[in-house]
């Protein structure tokens, strides 16, 4: 049975008509033991079916371990959004856990953003990213019922798109309780920057920039 209803499919088909560059989705799943693997794969399949500009590759996390390593994927379900086509590029945009609820809109925004090729960041942020020499890893913990979370996820993903030094993960907190414990997640969104610096809530761009500077200073 289809997860997307006809109304949603119609809306998405109309939106995807504006897609420019091709977009590729790579989903890592597993035959057994993954709670929302099947649904995550199905969401990606249904999205890909709505536009010729969206392609999809599905891999088994165990059987295709080398490929998972190449993408830096260490847990499933995982969804990677990248630019498709011959000059395709992996920006470091990751979803761990099912992109459902409010995060479904993040996924759609990311597809549109990667296709347009413009992360739409402020000059301050763009300038800072251009000088960035230290790798930055953002993990944005979310729940699917959190209306504030997509803002935090999308900002992190925009940074990943803008800089090769940045990787940004959405992490669905209830599917990865060990990570929620490790990073003391009791409220979302909570963004973990390079394991050392934390941001509560959906921070505006310049507030997050201060935190990024803090995290880079710790690393230096």
């Amino acid at each position, binding site marked *: 049975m289809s997860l997307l209803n006809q109304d949603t499919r119609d809306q998405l088909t109309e939106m995807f008509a504006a897609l420019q560059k091709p977009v590729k989705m790579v989903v890592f799943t597993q035959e057994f033991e993954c709670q929302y693997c099947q649904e995550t794969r199905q969401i990606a399949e249904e999205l890909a079916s709505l536009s010729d500009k969206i392609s999809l590759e599905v891999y088994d996390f165990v059987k295709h371990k080398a490929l998972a390593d190449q993408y830096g994927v260490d847990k499933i379900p995982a969804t990677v959004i990248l630019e498709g086509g011959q000059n395709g590029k992996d920006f470091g945009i990751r979803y761990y856990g099912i992109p459902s*609820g409010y995060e479904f809109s993040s996924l759609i925004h990311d597809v549109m953003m990667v296709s347009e090729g413009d992360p739409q960041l402020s000059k301050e942020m763009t300038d800072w990213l251009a000088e960035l020499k230290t790798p930055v890893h953002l993990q944005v913990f979310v729940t699917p019922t959190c209306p504030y979370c997509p*803002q935090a996820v999308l900002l992190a993903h925009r940074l990943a798109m803008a800089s090769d030094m940045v990787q940004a993960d959405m992490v669905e*907190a*209830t599917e990865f309780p060990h990570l929620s414990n490790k990073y*003391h997640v009791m409220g979302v969104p909570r963004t973990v920057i390079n394991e050392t610096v934390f941001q*509560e809530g959906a921070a*505006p761009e310049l507030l997050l920039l201060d935190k990024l500077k803090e995290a880079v200073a710790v690393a230096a």
Partner: protein
Amino acid sequence: MTFELNINGFSLDNQANDYDVIIIGGGPAGTTAAIYTARSELRTLVIDKGLTAGALGVTSKISNYPGVPGPISGAKLVEIMREQAESFGATFITDKVVGLMVDGEQKEIIAGTGNYRAKVVILATGAMGRTSTVKGEEALLGRGVSYCATCDGAFFRDQDVAVIGNNDEALEEALFLTKYAQTVHLIVPTPELKARDVLAYEVAENPKIKVRLATRLKEIVGNGRVEHILIHPRQGEPETVPVTGAFVYLQGSQPITDFLMGQLATTAEGCLVVDNDMQTSLPGVFAVGDLLCTHIKQAVVAASDGVLAAVAADKYVNGRKKAVVDWG
């Protein structure tokens, strides 16, 4: 553990969500603006938290609103205004705005039910925001202190939590939390509940919710995470209630601007700065009513702000259209 997939019907951008004017806040200022913009045939959406969410909505008797001899309840007065706005074609939705981007020509509003776009935004969120936090609240934010039960409820499965506040939102969130928590202590500062009857009834009937009336929250206590709250009943001694979560929905008299995330100029007191047309520091973004703190807090004054902003919004939308035609 299960949750609804919820991938249909909301959170998507689509043209149905495009408006000429979006008004945030459905009190007297916002609703009056809607009457005027809708009557000027501007496609108008009002996003409001609920009839009793604002200062007028919680006022019990009004007898000095011109043309309405009363006494009439604030909620009823807002309802009449709303029906008037709807009769001219304005659309009202009950929702909470969680963010907005208003610096471009097209303004984008992010609400719980999805994203909306408009040429003009009129802010009318009033002044029932909190003036201060309680001891321990900031330090324990994200460590058990939360402002969003739907976001964070899942982290408190089978635990005891507290909800502090007395409005529709607080009661709705308390009821939501009963899906996860063992016990929900509802700490209400006033001697009686101020919420819709049906909500108050549901809360009273729910065996998981323990209501404490006329009780103030003094402190949220914990070392690294919330361990208990310190409360003080109006008649009685302070006491501690062991909880791992504290969901705070208290109100005050501060303009509600947190959702703007500093995008607009404000005074030192946190009031929005506007020009004679009620326009803020960004073009196409207007602010009206108690957000401004420039005048006495009366419904009729707020309503008059709404008219000024609506007329200016009409000029803004249609003026721009004419200019485009001229250049063409």
